[in-house]
């Protein structure tokens, strides 16, 4: 009876996000042990845009994304994708550590096909989709190799293709560049930008590098220290494709310093 009551109360309180919202998070609670991480947390993530999550250490940047992606259970609260549950939504997830996320017993190409295979697609369909992606990303290395025979950047590209294979509605990237050298980071950033431009996929990126976050983002989501809330959402509208010139443009520098200011306020608080 009591639970039914709170449920109806919550339903009454449910406030839909502004137009163009894809993911709505309402009344989210999450604690690790006795320490609350998220208390009554609300968030709207826009459709067809790139949202970069940035915040102080330990504020749960990755945790919030993992809760949305269903990798970490929530204590209470609702997360909906256009009103649908996670189960009814196709998502793609790219892990920070590609070495531990790819399946080393499968060739790169079979890693990419794996999510299609488990969804019951025929091998012709798998092959067709894989070739589509390879063409779109203009991959030049041999995908009949095993992941451990590829460079770090190539492995992360395979991870990204694997996440994109089932044509997800939302793509999650958890610090996708932090295990890569700078050259590879630049290369993959460029490929991701092409992807954002071509597909307009709703994308959530967790980043620990503010410059990178702003560079990739349509919106930078700045989080506070724990218990975590949204400090501010800063839009960044520079046209894509963005390049080195974007990095020295006044809008970029403004946006970045704005973010940094808020970030420092939050850290000092």
């Amino acid at each position, binding site marked *: 009876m009591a639970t039914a009551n709170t449920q109806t109360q919550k339903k009454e309180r449910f406030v839909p996000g502004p137009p163009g919202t894809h993911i709505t998070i309402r009344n989210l609670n999450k604690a690790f042990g006795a320490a609350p991480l998220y208390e009554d947390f609300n968030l709207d993530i826009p459709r067809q845009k790139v949202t970069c999550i940035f915040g102080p250490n330990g504020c749960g940047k990755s945790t919030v994304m993992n809760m949305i*992606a*269903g*990798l970490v259970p929530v204590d209470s609260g609702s997360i909906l994708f256009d009103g649908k549950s996670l189960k009814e939504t196709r*998502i793609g997830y790219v*892990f920070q550590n590609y070495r531990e996320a*790819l399946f080393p017993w499968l060739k790169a190409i079979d890693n990419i096909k*794996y999510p299609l295979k488990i*969804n019951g697609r025929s091998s012709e369909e798998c092959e067709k989709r894989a070739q589509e992606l390879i063409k779109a990303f203009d991959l030049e290395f041999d995908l009949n190799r*095993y992941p451990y025979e590829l460079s770090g950047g190539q492995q992360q590209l395979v991870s990204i293709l694997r996440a994109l294979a089932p044509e997800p509605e939302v793509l999650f990237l958890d610090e996708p560049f932090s295990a890569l050298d700078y050259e590879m980071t630049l290369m993959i950033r460029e490929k991701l930008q092409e992807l954002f431009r071509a597909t307009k996929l709703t994308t959530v990126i967790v980043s620990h590098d503010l410059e990178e976050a702003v560079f990739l983002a349509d919106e930078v989501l700045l989080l506070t220290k724990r218990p975590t809330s949204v400090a501010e959402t800063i839009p960044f509208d520079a046209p894509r494709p963005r390049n080195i010139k974007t990095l020295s443009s006044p809008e970029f520098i403004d946006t970045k310093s704005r973010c940094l200011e808020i970030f420092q306020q939050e850290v000092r608080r």
Partner: protein
Amino acid sequence: MKTQDTLSGEAPVPKGSIKMKQNSPLADRLRNIAQPLIGPLALFAVWWMAAAGDWVSGNLLPGPIATFGSLWQSLVSGDMLTDAYATLKLTISAFAIAGVLGVPMGIVLGSNKKLYQSVEFVIDFFRSTPVTAMFPLFLLIFGIDDSSKISVAAFAAWLVLLFNVAYGVMNARETRVLAAKVMGASRWRIFKDVMFYDSLPQTFVGIRMAVSMGLVVIIVAEMFIGSIHGMGHRIIDAQQVYDLEDMYASILVTGIIGYGLNLLFLGLERWLVHWSGR
């Protein structure tokens, strides 16, 4: 100017490295072949000197040439092969039983933490108990024939395998399991497509340990549980009648069996679990 500099600066380097490479392949290859032979040859030399120079009484250590002669003779006459075959057969039988029981049980234990916790003590206790202490018990249960030897060796090998397979499954990379989960893989899919493969490297560690353990137990069992064949029996027989050359030759053959089994499974591992350690 700058490009010229780099060009002229770079030019001599490849030349030099090519010259060095031209010199090295044959020498490198020879060194690669020779390096692992140094140890065995040195051992042979020390053995020969010890026997020839009477550093050790001839009553304890026959010379290597006499020993290898004896080894050759028993191989040609075939009686060594009969014993080696008997030992190998028991070891493989014990290992097969351990594998058939140990691998599936290890997988079940490893994928169920609560179950593992409830039997962890029992496994650790029996793993720490010298299996030879249980010879008499197995004799009582299985009688004085090969079945008691096989079962006691299988028991020891099974424990090793069980433990390693369970640990392999338990330590399957969390990220890989999550990656499959996020793609919408069912629990069964995650188990057979991810956890099983991820446990294979550790399983093979267990397999190699188990087969070594099986051989040790079989040799000891052959020495002390009424046997008419087998390398253990042959070694103790040779010692009883003071046929030192045959004893040393038999020890060598036992070593070859052990080394061969290890090599076999190592090869199998490299082939099947090609990603191990990479």
